[in-house]
Every structure is written in structure tokens, then in C-alpha cells.
């Protein structure tokens, strides 16, 4: 079994994003609202990770300093089920710091990753909210495809 470096590290994000996470993630929607078309992310970590990806892809400046109250949105244990993500976070940290010592500091790596995620979240939320008549899932997919095709 591959070791999860982030097992004991929590992800804290500003409270202002809480409702969006609840709205667009299936783990927090129930009953008739439990529809992937409207809540395209299976788990909250998927939404958080996409935000991170968008920031990285779009070259957004990571947000290390964020004002306001934060809450624990995701526990690091979740990366145990997706080892490639754990590696992706480490590679991102290496890339960001250019220092291999960072791999021995999970908190720092998560701080870096979260800074990217927080930089990408506003863009991601805008995409989700601007979907108009489309479903969130379809609109988001189209936007992502556009991102890949234009860069």
C-alpha cells in the first residue's frame, strides 16, 4: 500500500465557499437534488482539486493569504483513495518550490496546493454559476474542453 503523505493534514478553506461546495458536490446533496447534472463533483476533494488545476493551468497566482474565517472542508485521508492525486500535490509543490526538502513537509505541500485551489475557486465558481440553461456538468465540461483546446 502506498503511503499517504497527507493523511493527517486537513484542508481549510474560507467559509464563503462552503455553500458552493455543498451545492456542487454530490456528497452534500440529498434526495432529488442528488443529481450529477447539477452537482457535478462526486466529492468535495474533486471540486477543490479542479480549482487547483484551473489555477495551475491558467497561471493564476496562488493565494497564500486569504482573509476571513476558514473551515475544515476536506480531510487529508481522502487522498489515500486517489494516490495519483497525492503524487500530483507533491509534484506541484516540487515545481512550486524547486526544493526537494518540501516533500518531507506535508503541511507546506498542502499549504501550496490549497493556495492554488483558492486561486482557482473563484474562476471555477463563476463557470458553475454562469451555466444558464445548461446543466452544471455539461457547461463545466464544455469550459474545460475549451481550456484544453485554446492552450
Amino acid at each position, binding site marked *: 500500500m502506498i503511503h499517504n503523505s497527507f493523511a493527517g493534514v486537513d484542508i481549510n478553506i474560507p467559509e464563503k465557499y462552503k455553500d458552493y461546495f455543498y451545492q456542487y458536490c454530490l456528497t452534500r446533496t440529498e434526495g432529488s437534488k442528488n443529481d450529477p447534472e447539477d452537482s457535478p463533483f462526486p466529492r468535495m476533494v474533486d471540486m477543490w482539486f479542479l480549482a487547483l*488545476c484551473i489555477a495551475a493551468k491558467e497561471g493564476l497566482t496562488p493565494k497564500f493569504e486569504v482573509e476571513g474565517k476558514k473551515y475544515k472542508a476536506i480531510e487529508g485521508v481522502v487522498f489515500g483513495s486517489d494516490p495519483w492525486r497525492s503524487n500530483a500535490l507533491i509534484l506541484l509543490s*516540487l515545481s*512550486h518550490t524547486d526544493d*526537494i526538502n518540501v516533500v518531507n513537509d506535508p503541511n507546506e505541500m498542502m499549504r501550496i496546493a490549497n493556495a492554488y485551489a483558492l486561486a482557482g475557486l473563484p474562476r471555477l465558481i463563476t463557470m458553475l454559476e454562469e451555466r444558464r440553461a445548461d446543466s452544471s456538468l455539461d457547461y463545466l465540461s464544455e469550459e474545460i474542453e475549451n481550456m484544453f483546446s485554446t492552450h
Partner: protein
Amino acid sequence: MKILKASIENFRLLKSVDIRFSTSSKKNITVIRAANESGKTTLLAALQWGLFGDEGLPNKGRDFRLSPIDMTLGGEEEKIPISVEILFQIEENNNIAKYRVRRYVEESVIDGVYERGSSTVMLTRIETTGEEPVSYPEVKIRRILPLELREIFFTDGDRALSFIEGKRGDQMRRVKEAIKSLLGLDVIQDAQKHLKLVNTSLNNRIRAGAGNTADLAKVTRDISKLEEEIPELEKKLEDVSSQLLNLEEYEKEAESNLEEALKKGNKEELVQEAERIQIKWKRANEDVKKAAREHANLFKNILFGQLFLKKKFQKAKKLLDKLYDQGQIPNQTIPVLEERLKQTTCICGELITENDKDGKKRRENIKTLIEASRKSDIIQEKISALYYSAQELLQPVDVNLWSEKYKEIFNSKQRAIQHLRELGQEQRDIETKIEKLPDVDIKNIREKKNRFKEQARKKHAEEIKLSNLISTKERELSEYIEKRQRLLHKDEKGKKINSEIEVASDLEKILNGALETMRNREIEKVSSKMNSLFLEMIGADQSQRAVITKAEITKEFQIIVYGMHGHPLDPTEDLNGASRRALTLAFILALTNVSEVEAPNVIDTPLGMMSGYVKKSVLFHAAKESSQLILLLTHSEINNCENILDDKAGRVYTMTNPAHYPNILLNDPGISDSRILFCECNYREECKICERKDDTSNTEYFYNNEIGESK
């Protein structure tokens, strides 16, 4: 018989009426013009009561009050006298004889409840010297006009339809009864009954004389028994056959109702179909959700990370590759050095033993190296693990891969969504159909049909069983008769009786033959006459490719109509109202014509539902075929027939119901009680009593008082 005059007192709304009927052979129609609810049917009933008594009333007079409805008396002592007096003439011994029949009854009415006493009837023959009472008046009247013929001569347009409408078995029975009564076939049947009595009496004589011949007595007894049994069985068979016909009709009707209902749509089936589609829809909905989940899972896919973080990964890869090149990946220093310490020489070949001064120094260096390596080992271990486990992430990926995966999943999802939409549309279509369907219980109709089918099957089996039984009994009878003949031939007395039996048997054969011949010949005559009359009435010109080509009465006494190419038509379904009435009137007139029975045809509303050519033609032919035609007509029936009536109507009356003021009547008749008024206005005239408002003012009145009120 011709009716000369009728005087009616207190017969329902006919409180005091005197009518003279036309007896002229050229102008043989008497027209009684009356709007609806103006006493036409009452007059028809009054004439029948006068001639036939309660037997001539609807439901044989049960629950049929005769006295005027507005007449209520104070006590039991007071009675309302009701009478109908009819003056008629008949041909008797080549002379015209006149008779007067007067039927009288009293009714007491207390608190709206009536009680009728026994009626009396008096028949007198009018002589030049005065009136001579006739003994047994009912018998005499029945001889002049048999009760069985009542429905032929006194009818209304609707009732006459029973000869061609209703259940086939009942239709055929009515037609058969009418033909039998009017053509005198009953007389022959009576003669057959007489012969049977003769046979019975002969059998009794044989039994009485057979005394010591036990065989002969037994055979004769058996013959008598069979001769009683067989007609009873035949009668039963006739009833069963008639019931079977009716059941087959019911089944056919239910079948047709079922087809009709199914054509509109089977609600039960549609509901089941809707349920099936609902299940399919739920499955399809699950498929859509599954496809959406697969779609959403794209965001968890490694490809996603590879593409988005490509640049970051490239930079990290460079760093890792450098470490690899530097030999820091994988981290193998410590094991190599530790392994070397176990040896006596270094990799370079120098001694590293403790005994040697330089070797010891070299050995200490290696130990220091091991200690330094241990410090960076954790990081190197992690970097090494990352280097190997992240290889997949670090591989170059085609940017189109995600797009292809997305398209594949998107299309699959769209197919699922499209399927769901189609099922939704199907569901809505079915629901709309269900909503539009009348609330017809198809299950019930089907059960009804099956019930009739089962009953018909049982009845058919009963028919076959009875038929076989009759054949067996007839065979037995024939064997017994032969045996009796042989036994009778043994002595002289027997021979004498046998010859009498033979005479009776021959006579029976002759009568049977005559009945059969008459039945066939007379039916053919009536059928042929009815056909020509009917076709003329409806103006069916064969050279013009008429839709109706022929009408006939079958040997089974059914009236059938044929269309083009001899295709049989169902009179109830395939003929319009006017043609159906024309057909029944043609049958009645043909029957009276062939029978040569001279009696008045009193018909209530014969031209209802008719118009144009058919109406005029029916009136013309009815006048031509009848010896005396008394027609009870509405204003609309008379409309456009005035010219024919100018030629054929000898007398015309108008009956008016004062209760129709002010809705229909123009003038207030000034009558305080309920009664029908008579005037002698003909079909072109109106007087103060019968003058009606024109159609426009009637319409205005109806609008203002009926529709206007309801608004």
C-alpha cells in the same frame, strides 16, 4: 270493416269528442292533425279500447288510468263515466251491415288514486227499423277483427318498427304471429288440432276394445303418449331456437360494442401500457443518472491531472531526473557502504581493516559517510518513491484524449437522455389518450359477451338435444303406428278402426301439406308485395343503381333487405329512419293486402323522420293500398304532403291541447280544465282554437323564456 264514427267521453284528455271518418273509396284518408302531446296516442288507445277492451290498452290496462287526470271526486259514491262508442260497417252476406259498439266503465278517484270497475260492452246491429242488440258482443267483434290483428291495424310508427328491430328471435316471432293471424293459417292449425283429437278418440276406442289384447293396448297407449309429447317438444324446440337467436343477437351486439369501444381505445390496456412505460422510464432515468455519474467521474480521472498540471509536472520531472542522474535516486549509498564495511578492502582496492592504521582511517571515513547519508535518507526515500510511483503522471499525454473521452461519455449520456425523452413523450401521449377516452368498462363488456356466448353454446346444445329427442320419438311413433296397424289387422273390428285411423292420417297429411303450401305461397306473396311497395316508397330505381335493391320475408319469418350485388343489409343499422318506417309500413300494408281482410289502418305518426320524396311516396302508397286510412299526423308530417291529401283526404280534424298556450298557441282558448279541443280545420286552415304562433315567434319565446332564464 270501416269505422264511420267514434264518440269518446272522459277517456283521459278526450273529454267529449265526436269524429266522423271518411269511408269514401276515392278519398279514403281521415287526417287527425295534432301537435305533439295533443292526444294522438290517446285517440289511438281509445279506439282500441272501444273495440278490444282492456286487451287493447298498453300493458293490458294495468296501471293505465282512463279518466281525465284533472278529475278528482269527493267520495266513493261519485264515479267518472268513461265511454267509447264506435259506429262501423262490415260486408255481410254481400250487403253492408252497420254496427254500433259501446264500451262503458266507471272510475272513482279519491286522493289521486283511481279504481276502475268492470267495463260493459254493448253491440247493436243497426237496422232500418232500429237497433238490434247482438248477443255475445265480444265474440262477434273478435270474429270481425281478431285481437291478434290489433297491432297490424292499430299501430304507430315506432311500434311498427318492432317487426324489423330488436332481437332477431323476437322480430321473427312477431312477423310470424302477424302473418299467421292475418292469413288464416291459424284455421289450418286449428284443424290439425281437431285431427289430433280424432286420433286420440280413435286410440281410446282401440284401447277400450283391445281388452284382451295387451300388446295393442300398450302400443296404443304409447302412441297417445308420444302424440302428446312430440308437439310439446316441438313447441319447446321452437322456444329454445328463438332464445338461441336472441342470445346470438345479444352476443353479436356485445361483440360490436366491444369492437366499438376497442376502436376508441382500451382504457384498461392503455393504463397497463402506461404502467409498463413508467417502469421503462424509471430504468431509463437511472441510465441517465448513471451516464451523468460516469460523466462526473471524468473529474476524478488521472488524465485530468495530467493535462491540467502538465507544466508543473514537467518542471518537477526535470528536478527528479536531475536527482536520478546524480545517483540520488534511487537511494543506494548506505547499503553499499555498509556492505563494504563487511569487506577488508574498499572499492578502490585499499585496505579498510582495523589492524591497519590507514585502513582504520579509511574505515572511519566510510562510517562518517554512512552517518551523513542517513540524515538525507528520508527525503531521498520519499523522492525515490515519488519518482517511481508518479511515472504515469509524468508521461506525456495527448490533449485530445480527454476530449475524446468526454465526447464518448457525452454522446452515451445524450442517447440515454433522448431515450428518456421519448418514453416521457409516449407516457404523455398515452395519458392524453386515457383522458380523452369515455369511461367504458371494456372488461365488463367482454365478460358480458363471453356470458352470452356461453349461454348461446348451452342453448345450442339444448337445441340439438331436443332435435335428436324429437327425431327419436318420431321414429318410435312411426314404429308403434306400424305395430298397431299389424295388430289391428288381426280382427275385423280392428280393421275398421284402422281404416278410420288411415283416413285421419291422410287428412293430417293433406292439412300439413296445405299449411306448408299456404305458408310458403302466402309468405312469398306478402314478401313480393312488401318488396314492390317498399322499393316504390323509397324511390329505389334499379336502373339508377339504387343502394337498396330488394326486401324479402324469409321462410323463417325474418324481414331482410338487400343492397347492391345481393349484399344483405341489417335493417336496424344499415337503413335510415325513414327507410325503416317505410319498410314496416310496406310490410303491414302488404300483409293486409294479401290477406284481403278489410279493416281500417289507424296509424299514429307514420311519417315521422321522413321528408321529401319518401314521405310523399309513403303517404301515396299507404292511401292506395288501404281500404280506410286513419292517420294521426303532426304539422311537420303534413308539411309538403298537402297536395296528396287534397286528393285523398275525405275528412280532416285538428286536435289542440289548450295547455300549449301561450308557448305554441296564439290565442287563449279560455279553457280552465285539461282537455283536448277538436276543430274541423284542415291542414291548410287555422281557427281561433288551433292557430299557432309562427316559427319565429316560437323561437323568440323559447329563447326569452327558456334560454334567457337559464343565463
